[in-house]
């Protein structure tokens, strides 16, 4: 592996929301790293805090949101000063807008049907970012918009630029949204469940497109998803998130072939699989904890069939499995009893490995 350049470094990030039923600790200390040109997926159930985390990277917060601590360090090339590292949480709204949003970090949202402004033409929405940040002349901006659309697979787009979002299909719209995100050559592209709202046939195409663009443009991508199928297809690294905390992180191979956290086991087991004989789809029992209440010990313990006594009183730290694989579970402690992953999952992984060998 050649020299990796870190561009995003989140440390001890904590966020809470003031709600009518009390203070909700949505993010409870998250460490997250992103290196140039790589794709990291954040996987978790809805409400686990993945969206809140990435939105904070762009400075998007709801009015009742409070940052309780942590840093989000972002390293980028500033034209004049060379390499520069800033803590996004310390920037003013204005700095954030002028320096970061759109220019260096861009985002693709879940639902392309609602994320385009219905009353502005595609051309206008594609060009306004460049025209605002770089003062690109209009003709040039439209020229570039055409190139961008070409890049995302919409060719001969001159007339297309004059159309309105409602005239396009969902897949087309998502391409436009991706083109908008790329308009100012960002370093980081955040994709918040970019394919959930699309037809299955189009999902694969959009994923391929994003992967393709990433290679061409050498950008870093953060994927937010609850779909492990997507993760297997696109990600280099995977972070599993549960109840506002990361519980396991590693490379795709670590997570898929050597998962260590019982929650990851649960997620993998609940992936539908045509080949397995077991007809019952596995679900993780129970529901995520209500984060208004203080979490004692391991948040996953109440749903964990492998929970230990210590899980009830102490939160597990990260244990290193190898150079790139870490897990926050007491099961990884040397004193812990040796617990094997569920047999069905094990069988499934072995089968995948065999298939991998056959194909490779």
């Amino acid at each position, binding site marked *: 592996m050649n020299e990796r350049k870190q561009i995003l470094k989140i440390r001890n990030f904590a966020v809470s929301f003031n709600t009518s039923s009390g203070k909700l600790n949505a993010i409870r200390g998250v460490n997250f790293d992103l290196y140039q040109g790589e794709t990291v997926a954040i996987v978790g159930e809805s409400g686990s805090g993945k969206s809140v985390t990435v939105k904070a990277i762009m400075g*998007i917060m709801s009015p009742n949101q409070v940052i309780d601590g942590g840093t989000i360090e972002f390293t980028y090339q500033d034209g004049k000063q060379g390499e520069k590292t800033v803590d996004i949480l310390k920037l003013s709204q204005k700095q954030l807008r002028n320096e970061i949003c759109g220019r260096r970090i861009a985002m693709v*949202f879940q639902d392309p049907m*609602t994320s385009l*402004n*219905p*009353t502005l033409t595609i051309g206008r929405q594609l060009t306004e970012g460049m025209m605002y940040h770089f003062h690109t002349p209009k003709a040039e901006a439209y020229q570039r918009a055409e190139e961008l659309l070409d890049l995302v697979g919409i060719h001969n787009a001159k007339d297309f630029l004059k159309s309105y979002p409602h005239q396009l299909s969902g897949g087309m719209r998502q391409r436009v949204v991706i083109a908008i995100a790329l308009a100012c050559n960002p370093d980081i592209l955040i994709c918040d469940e970019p394919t959930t709202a699309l037809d299955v046939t189009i999902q694969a195409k959009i994923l391929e497109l994003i992967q393709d663009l990433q290679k061409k443009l050498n950008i870093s991508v953060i994927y937010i998803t609850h779909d492990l199928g997507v993760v297997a297809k696109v990600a280099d690294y995977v972070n599993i998130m549960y109840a506002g905390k990361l519980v396991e992180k590693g490379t795709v191979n670590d997570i898929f072939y050597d998962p260590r956290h019982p929650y990851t086991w649960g997620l993998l087991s609940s992936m539908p699989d045509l080949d397995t004989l077991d007809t019952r789809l596995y679900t993780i029992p129970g529901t995520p904890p209500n984060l208004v209440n203080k979490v004692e010990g391991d948040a996953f313990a109440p749903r964990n069939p492998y929970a230990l006594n210590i899980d009830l009183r102490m939160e597990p730290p990260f244990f290193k499995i190898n150079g790139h694989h870490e897990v926050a579970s007491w099961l990884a402690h040397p004193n812990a009893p040796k617990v094997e992953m569920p047999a069905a999952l094990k069988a499934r992984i072995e089968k995948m490995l065999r298939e991998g060998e056959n194909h490779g």
Partner: protein
Amino acid sequence: MWKYIAKRILIALGTLFFILFVLFILLSFMPGSPFNQLTLTAEQIAVLEAKYGLDKPLMIRFFIYVKNMLQGDFGVSYNIIADYPVIDLIGAKFWISAKLGLTATVVGTVLGLFLGLVASIKHNTWLDTGTTFLSVLGVSLPGYVFALALSYFIGFKMNLLPIVYSTKHPVSSLILPVLSMSMGPMAQIARYTRTEMLDVLGSDYMLLARTKGLSNRILFIRHALKNGLTPVITVLGPMLVSLMSGSMVVEQIFSVPGMGSLLVSAVQTNDYNVVLGVSFLYSLMFIVSMLVVDLLYGVIDPRISVSGGKKE
């Protein structure tokens, strides 16, 4: 586009024809006669009815009326000013009502838009609460309550402004009527604007626009305003008409000699032709304003296809 407009106009004309028919039938069922002075004998009434063509069968009278109407003749008044053409009677009153209604609509719209925008931008602050309270009040209470309150306190007790309309003070004597009439529209528009703007401000496309790093001013003007305010146009036209037709009581309170008071006195004296003329004019304005709003909306909002489609 033109085909669509033509189709809409044809439909509107058809509707208007039927409305006229319904109004005509309704009035022919009116009890009593316009000629109800006690001094008149039965023969005299019969002569009068023959003179005005009231003795002919209903359908024939209707077609005569339509034929005359197309030539601008709405018949003559029986009682208010005997034998005076209805069209001239209305014409004199129409402008003052239109002036009153239009001014109140403009004042109400401007104030309402302002309040609605402020409330949506300052969502969940005391400004928002205050605006909401004001608009609940304005939506709930009829215009004449404001008219009574204003004329009593500002006009009578404080003696600041005239409480009776007079041609000598055409501006100052219209302030109170306009003010009391604009409360309803103001409240309605403020409420509507607030909801629409909150919807827009919380939308996904606003979020996407924010991630582009645009300034708040551009975000607000280019992305939010147009989407938030377009729907408000739909309420304007019908509002103007209902304001004019609903102003009867306010016109009475301030003695404004408008269409409202004309209709009231026509109702009270069984002056059928005048009642018919005024009612038809109201309907005409109503239909026309809805047509205009429809077409205007099609021009402003690209989602509405000119072939008559609806919002997705």
